[in-house]
């Protein structure tokens, strides 16, 4: 089992306010890590910092992806290297079609990997195949990215993009928020089917509910910018029962 991601004493702030105050975490290939914690603990900040969101400043610490310094890479290079974020609030991009967007993204990744770009035919056939996984309609291709999508469709569209790009590290930031039980099942099944012995996921969530479907190997509790407790999946159940105050 080789090391995929290593976070060492990570500190980060937004607008001068320190949010992450020394996060340490090691993720190996094949693992699913859940990160839970109260509002304002820094869960979304962690995903923003790992993906290079320019709104946040890293003020200390190191992050390595397969031994490479992640923090010096541009956001698009991190993505091509295999870091994928399923956004808590997927962005609507009027006028940019899903097809054009996805093809540009996939070919950028292939170029980074030294592969030839896909032909239009190959690309469309891949789109069709991956859309089935998420039970997404065919009409999606010509629609603008996320524009006019329902909450459930937006989250399914995130996992669809994950299926297209086949990242080595997926960060699911509150993917369960705003999903009804059917959509949750489809999204979770999609995520489970994309799991291989060589990739890993970080599942950020408030609730145990999602973890009934995506079963984590480790559960971490993030509070006030630090991981204060780590356990197996039973820790999530314990949190559900006793609340964060009982644990922290």
């Amino acid at each position: 089992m080789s090391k995929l991601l290593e976070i060492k004493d990570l500190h980060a702030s937004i607008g001068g306010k320190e949010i992450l105050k020394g996060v340490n975490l090691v993720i190996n290939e094949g693992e699913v890590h859940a990160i839970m914690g109260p509002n304002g603990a820094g869960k979304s900040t962690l995903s923003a910092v790992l993906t290079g969101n320019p709104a946040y400043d890293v003020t200390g610490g190191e992050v390595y992806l397969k031994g490479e310094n992640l923090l010096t890479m541009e956001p698009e290079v991190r993505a091509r290297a295999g870091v994928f974020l399923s956004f808590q609030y997927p962005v609507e991009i009027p006028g940019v079609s899903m097809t054009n967007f996805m093809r540009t993204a996939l070919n950028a990744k292939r170029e980074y990997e030294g592969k030839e770009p896909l032909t239009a035919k190959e690309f469309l056939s891949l789109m069709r195949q991956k859309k089935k996984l998420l039970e997404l309609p065919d009409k999606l291709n010509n629609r603008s990215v996320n524009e006019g999508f329902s909450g459930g469709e937006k989250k399914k569209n995130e996992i669809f993009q994950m299926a297209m790009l086949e990242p080595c590290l997926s960060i699911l930031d509150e993917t369960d928020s705003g999903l009804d039980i059917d959509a949750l099942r489809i999204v979770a099944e999609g995520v489970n089917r994309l799991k291989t012995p060589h990739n890993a996921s970080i599942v950020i969530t408030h609730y145990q509910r999602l973890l009934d479907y995506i079963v984590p190997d480790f559960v971490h509790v993030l509070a006030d910018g630090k991981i204060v407790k780590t356990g197996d999946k039973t820790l999530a159940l314990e949190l559900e029962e006793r609340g964060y105050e009982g644990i922290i």
Partner: protein
Amino acid sequence: MFINEPVNLQIDQEAGSHVKIHVINAPFSITVNQLEEGCKTEIYALENLHGEENVTAETHVTHAVGGGSSTQLIKFVLDDNARGHFIGDLKIAPDAQQTEAHQTNRNLLLSETAEMRTQPQLEIYADDVKATHGASTGQLDESALFYMQQRGIDKQKARQLLVNAFMKEIIETISDEKVKERLLDTIDGIVQ
């Protein structure tokens, strides 16, 4: 793209006539008078400016009689030190009841040194009309840029995709399919 020679048009419309005008990358002054009932006027313009380019666009639309409609959509994309100026006069005369008139000016600033001035002037003297006007000048959506970068699209290409999306709205109003396709290809060519 480059800036074309100025376009100056003065049009008097007769009953039931339909005028549809597209201007792409040229300074212009367009005057349209709806002199008889049931006229339809459409004006679409796109100015994509770079460097020291400076373009003024003027529309003067008058509804002298009722039952007509006018639609204007004027867009500027301004990079570097470009300057844009839109002057939009829209008059609805006292007798021009049941007129429908829409004037929209949307502008995208791609640099901190580009400038846009917008001067809409509406004179509405009839009471039974539907008239709207809107003007906005903004920058590229940072959250959309980051979203695209997070999928592996480099920032320059992400910017171009957003700018093209902004420009396409004008191109897509062109009725002639061949011209439309050619212009869409020209825009997409910048990306791929």
